[in-house]
């Protein structure tokens, strides 16, 4: 059977199990959109307000569901608008397949209308990318792209398809099958050595990251923690790796991590790194970070070993497999004294998160949102103070429910991501914690949420400032508030209503609780505008390149 490139693409997407994609049509993808039209009963396409929103939505969809996110855009500006979204997914290891149209092959390189070399542009922020040169290659490329996006450490892959390739036809044999070789590093699992190291430790400490969440190792991680009497702290990406209610959980470590998490880390004799990449925001001063302990590292990506922190021993592989392997052979280890000490740290006054007595505080907003509408919800954030507050105050119980841009720190990520997470959770409630700064970047996607009648609640913490930058100016730049006082006159309630969403304003606790009560019964988009003080800062804080000795508690 002969099919066109566009037909092959859509047929293969369906065969790969893709039934929801995000995108934005345009001149160079008309043929693909025509095929999508014919197959609209099999693939639901969500059009966003901007391609960046589509890329973040596909990313949020993938993070929430564990499936591969798919985003489609036209050539030129359509393609370049995806770049921030692709880079965001790359830094946080999200399986994403981005498909772009391009001008016809004979027009490539001639500076044609809406032509851009998107393969060149995205090379540093994709695991791999392709420009399809022959329609007969398309099927294999698409299969391989999905394979690569999910093989080992996940990440984005881009496929650029020139317009003539979409229209040309090739023989399509349904029975043809493809196999690809995994590029995962096969390390011999020196389990005796690992177990000996665990047995020798008197003060073991588990530091879990995004790898533990991606690999679905939550229950193994809890069992491992109990088996070796080690507390579990997480990186920002690992916040949902263990439930907040788990007795061994210390919360997040790092620049804005909990006191007990940072203190115990500084005093452990064995740091067990479980799918973390030791970002500078997590480690602070790298020379001091593991000065007093040995490091045992588990990661699926061999290149993460010794990249930022030198490991004394490591195992390369999926976190779930590694932990189950250890759990099969390792007897119960007793480090009760250490656990007792850690629980003293946990109960210490320094470990309490500071809060102000302002009329409305981030702590109050986030804790009450969690309690009132948090059950079963996905929680997305933008980037800045509100993101850290969410990581600190929100009690996450389920893996994959915290959707946040950790590595790239993309302001404007939240709206698209919250939409994607909502769709990726079969339209269960999605909560976006955002701020006046981040929200203004991509608030256009409110339109997408309204059109699709998504149960999305935007909780906007408005401090009339670019809060995180302002906090650094307060602490390190002599309160020179250079361009961080926003003084915008946006009426967020009217704005929400203009988009067709419900809007609520809250200046104090009573108003906020009333808004939450109203939102609880809504299954359509709503926004709660929370006015908070500009001087609310994120604490604790270990200043950049600092150690536990530099921690500022409040």
């Amino acid at each position, binding site marked *: 059977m002969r099919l066109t490139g566009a037909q092959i693409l859509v047929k293969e997407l369906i065969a790969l199990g893709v039934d929801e994609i995000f995108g934005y049509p345009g001149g160079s993808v008309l043929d693909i959109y025509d095929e999508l039209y014919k197959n609209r009963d099999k693939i639901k396409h969500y059009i966003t307000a901007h391609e960046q929103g589509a890329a973040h939505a596909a990313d949020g969809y993938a993070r929430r569901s564990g499936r591969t996110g798919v985003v489609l855009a036209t050539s030129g500006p359509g393609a370049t608008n995806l770049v921030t979204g692709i880079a965001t997914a790359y830094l946080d290891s999200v399986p994403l397949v981005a498909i772009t149209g391009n001008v016809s092959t004979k027009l490539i390189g001639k500076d044609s209308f809406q032509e851009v070399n998107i393969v060149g542009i995205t*090379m540093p922020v994709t*695991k791999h990318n392709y420009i399809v040169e022959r329609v007969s290659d398309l099927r294999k490329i698409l299969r391989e792209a999905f394979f690569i996006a999910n093989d080992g450490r996940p990440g984005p892959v881009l496929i650029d398809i020139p317009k003539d390739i979409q229209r040309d036809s090739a023989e399509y044999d349904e029975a043809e099958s493809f196999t690809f070789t995994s*590029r995962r*590093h*096969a390390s011999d699992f020196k389990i005796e050595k690992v177990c000996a190291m665990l047995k020798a430790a008197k003060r073991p400490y588990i530091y879990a990251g995004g790898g533990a969440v991606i690999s679905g190792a939550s229950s193994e991680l809890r069992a491992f923690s109990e088996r070796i009497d080690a507390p579990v702290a997480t990186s920002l990406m690992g916040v949902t790796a263990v439930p907040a209610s788990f007795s061994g959980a210390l919360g997040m470590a790092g620049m804005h991590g909990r006191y007990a998490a940072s203190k115990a880390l500084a005093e452990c004799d064995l740091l067990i790194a479980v799918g973390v990449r030791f970002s500078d925001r997590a480690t602070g001063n790298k020379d001091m970070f593991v000065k007093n302990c040995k490091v045992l590292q588990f990661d699926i*990506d061999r290149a993460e*070993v*010794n*990249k930022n922190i030198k490991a004394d021993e490591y195992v390369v592989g999926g976190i779930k497999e590694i932990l189950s392997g250890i759990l099969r052979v390792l007897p119960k280890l007793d480090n009760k004294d250490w656990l007792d000490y850690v629980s003293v740290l946990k109960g210490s006054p320094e470990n309490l998160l500071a809060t102000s007595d302002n009329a409305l505080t981030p702590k109050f907003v986030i804790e009450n949102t969690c309690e009132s509408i948090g059950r079963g919800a996905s929680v997305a954030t933008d980037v800045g103070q509100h993101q850290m507050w969410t990581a600190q105050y929100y009690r996450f119980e389920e893996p994959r429910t915290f959707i946040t841009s950790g590595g790239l720190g993309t302001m404007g990520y939240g709206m698209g991501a919250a939409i994607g997470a909502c769709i990726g959770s079969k339209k269960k409630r999605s909560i976006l914690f955002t701020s006046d700064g981040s929200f203004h970047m991509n608030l256009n996607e409110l339109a997408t949420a309204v059109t699709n009648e998504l149960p999305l609640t935007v909780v906007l913490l408005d401090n009339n400032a670019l809060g995180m930058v302002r906090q650094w100016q307060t602490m390190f730049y002599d309160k020179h508030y250079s361009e961080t006082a926003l003084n915008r006159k946006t009426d967020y309630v009217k704005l929400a209503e203009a988009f067709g969403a419900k809007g609520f304003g809250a200046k104090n606790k009573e108003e906020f609780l009333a808004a939450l009560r109203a939102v609880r019964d809504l299954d359509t988009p709503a926004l709660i505008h929370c006015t908070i003080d500009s001087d609310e800062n994120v604490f604790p804080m270990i200043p950049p390149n600092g150690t536990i000795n530099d921690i500022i508690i409040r």
Partner: protein
Amino acid sequence: MNQNKHTIFLLVANKHGVLTRISGLFAKRAYNIDNLSVGRTDDPEISRMTVVVECGEALVEQIVQQLRKLVDVIAAEAADPQNTVERELLLVKIKNCADTGGQLTEAVNIFRGRVVDMTPDSLIVEITGEEDKLNAFINYVQKFGVVELSRTGVTALERGKTALAERSESWT
């Protein structure tokens, strides 16, 4: 040889864009390429690259691991300097002023080079050898007037009967 120079062997898919991917990786991670050469192997679908990097010992391992993640990289390995044969080819064009006392001819002979082209007012010398030898030759012939020169970059093979492809099987 400079203690901080390390040679990395690579087998890569012989497709367009591969060189961009490799050099792009070096650029984005701020690895310093000192020298790079590339050519097709006996298998037309595979090219071999030799990259000389300037960095500390610990970073070489990291560079090799990052290279291995590229889809088009078939094999990547850091060379054992004690066990590696390295060569580079140099073409240098020299102003053909009178070769006073045969000094230039003597130098070409001592360096085991050859004159491969001659015009009334220029000649081209070809020299093969290790980097340091080529540097020494270039320094010496400056006085005759170097018009321009071109070097291929280092190419290298490890001693012994095994091939890079076999040695690297363990990591995929």
